[in-house]
């Protein structure tokens, strides 16, 4: 199927009444959670995942993806008005967005943010549409050893980029692998790490871990008292939200920079939208004729990172859908969703389920238009959400988590596990252990062990099968990724020692 006919089929699917409604619900919910600090896409998608099991998979996937990219639009609102990022990808937007708002240009900052998000988000979908099918074709030659190596590289990149401590990132990933191996081993029917509990024979559901760590952990972390931030006023009327012609001209390069950087970073497993937005901001500042204005309210400093974090969403779907490799916590949850619905993301995903793939692509075009329409005139309405008090919101999140897990399994045991993983999520936050490697280890662990064992069975235990050209190359990349920070650390220590001597 060529791209054009695929896209036409996609629009046919995405424009059906139900799927259009799902897209609206998804982008609306995404904007809402993007606006609300403390509730991110992984927690929301994890909580809603069990409820989507009752829905038709294409519509459900359209809705979940809508939440994912919709949150990126909403995230800028709090960055600009409150100097508090609605989600991690909008941290950079605070630098110039809030300064613009303080100078009375909140409308232009909100407007350019929505426009940049729309342009980069749409260009990102074009990239997804053009790159995913040939990449899937290329990866058809992959078998168990190549898959094992791919999963190792995916995990290595996430660990590398997941926080200040590489050791903690690796340990979190190993805990994820441990949870993934709980239950009955399918090769030998051996029960592993079940603690004598029959309820653990089937392993621990991904949903329980994800909701516990992201949603419950987040609520507990936010229970610590915080100073309420003062919100700057939202300009009234669409006219006051539209940037001037000069603003648009100033942001020409920022639109292109954000789109390209965001999409490319998105394709790399583990890089994530926060890095995409920082990188595009850095490039924008480096090429600017007036870099001194950055940090004081430069409009390009809003357009570039906001564009990048939206283009990144489409980029991150490329390895997820064509290789079955998620690059972040949120895409790991989307991968789990696809697997739970009975799909197998990987090289055959596009050819086996064209309606789902092309329907999703088309819905993202539609969703981006919806988000532009929603975010320009309705930004004042969304900003009102910031007035919802924490004491009203947290019980609702806890209730959603309970309903989400119970509706999936009707098991009180799993609700007990939910509370345990909530405590673990909180402890991880306090002790600065990143959550994304744990979730990825959990999602990839089972498939990684299977690929490794299948590889070694194919070669009758000869490990050299993992050193065929493609897996060897990928494993080498993974090794380099893990070793480089050690050198950096070594270098930093060396410099520190030299400084002390001086």
């Amino acid at each position, binding site marked *: 199927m060529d791209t054009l006919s695929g896209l036409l089929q996609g629009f046919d699917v995405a424009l059906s009444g139900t799927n259009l409604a799902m897209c609206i619900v998804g982008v609306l919910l995404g904007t809402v959670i993007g606006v609300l600090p403390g509730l991110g896409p992984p927690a929301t998608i994890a909580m809603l995942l069990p*409820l989507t099991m*009752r829905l038709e998979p294409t519509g459900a996937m359209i809705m979940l993806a809508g939440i994912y990219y919709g949150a990126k639009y909403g995230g800028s609102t709090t960055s600009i008005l409150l100097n508090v990022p609605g989600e991690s990808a909008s941290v950079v937007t605070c630098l110039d967005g809030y300064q613009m708002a303080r100078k009375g240009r909140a409308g232009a900052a909100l407007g350019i943010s929505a426009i940049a998000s729309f342009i980069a988000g749409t260009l990102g979908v074009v990239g997804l549409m053009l790159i995913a099918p040939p990449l899937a074709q290329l990866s058809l030659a992959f078998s168990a050893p190549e898959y094992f190596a791919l999963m190792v590289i995916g995990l290595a990149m996430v660990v590398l980029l997941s926080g200040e401590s590489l*050791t*903690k990132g*690796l*340990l979190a990933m*190993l*805990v994820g*692998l*441990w949870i993934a*191996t709980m239950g009955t*081993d399918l*090769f*030998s029917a*051996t029960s*592993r*790490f079940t603690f004598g509990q029959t309820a653990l024979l089937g392993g621990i559901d991904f949903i329980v871990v994800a909701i516990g760590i992201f949603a*419950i952990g987040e*609520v*507990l*972390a936010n*229970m*610590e*008292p915080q100073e309420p931030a003062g919100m700057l006023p939202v300009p009234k009327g669409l006219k006051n939200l539209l940037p001037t012609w000069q603003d648009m001209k100033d942001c020409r390069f920022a639109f292109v920079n954000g789109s390209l950087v965001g999409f490319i970073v998105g394709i790399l497993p583990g890089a994530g939208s926060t890095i995409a937005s920082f990188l595009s901001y850095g490039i924008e500042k480096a090429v600017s004729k007036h870099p001194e204005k950055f940090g004081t309210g430069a409009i390009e400093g809003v357009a570039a990172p906001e564009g990048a974090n939206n283009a990144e969403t489409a980029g991150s779907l490329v390895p997820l859908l064509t290789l079955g490799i998620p690059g972040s916590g949120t895409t790991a949850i989307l991968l789990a969703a696809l697997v739970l619905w009975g799909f197998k993301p990987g090289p055959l995903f596009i050819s086996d389920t064209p309606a789902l793939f092309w329907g999703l692509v088309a819905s993202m075009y539609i969703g981006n238009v919806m988000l532009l329409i929603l975010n320009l005139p309705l930004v004042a309405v969304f900003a009102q959400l910031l007035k919802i008090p*924490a*004491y*009203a919101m*947290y*019980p*609702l999140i*806890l*209730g959603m988590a*309970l*309903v989400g897990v*119970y*509706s999936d399994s*009707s098991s*009180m045991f799993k*609700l*007990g596990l*939910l*509370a345990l993983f*909530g*405590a673990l999520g*909180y*402890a991880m936050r*306090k*002790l*600065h*252990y990143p959550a994304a490697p744990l979730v990825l280890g959990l999602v990839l662990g089972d498939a990684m*062990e299977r690929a*490794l*064992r299948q590889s*070694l*069975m194919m070669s*009758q*235990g000869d490990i050299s099968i993992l050193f065929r050209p493609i897996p060897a190359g990928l494993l080498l990349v993974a090794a380099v990724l893990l070793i480089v920070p050690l050198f950096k650390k070594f270098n930093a220590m060396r410099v520190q020692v030299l400084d002390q001597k001086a």
Partner: protein
Amino acid sequence: MNAFIRRGDFWSGLTLVALGAYIVKEAWSWEYLTVDGPGPGFFPLWYGGAMIGLSLLLVAGAVLKSDSAAPQKHVNWSELRRVLTCWAAFVACIALLNVLGFVVSFALMTWFIIAVLFRKSQRLAIGLAVGGALGFYALFSLALGVALPAGFLF
């Protein structure tokens, strides 16, 4: 008391050493290699070993960095008490689900969080607790047909 004793890295590292040791001990009792290839103990043995090594590294780092001049981040006990109380309320809500059902248990948890943890007025706490619980019941049980935990009461 040595500075490293107060470090989260030290205690979390020790916990993970213990977990790694448990994983290796369990994996040791399963087959490492079978006639068909790797057995059920193969993968856990490797990642369990890696866990022990990395967590020992973390513990060593915490001990070596235990410079008494370095700024220490102390545990804020009142914050922690508040978090643990909220978590206990959540656990109690789960424990009560089979007895009181979702609607009553959830309403009680909501009331507790708003009235006790956030110290809001009883009127507001009861109003939001009852409204929230009935809202959940209407949306999930009646509108979406999702089975909520039922108890003796509701």
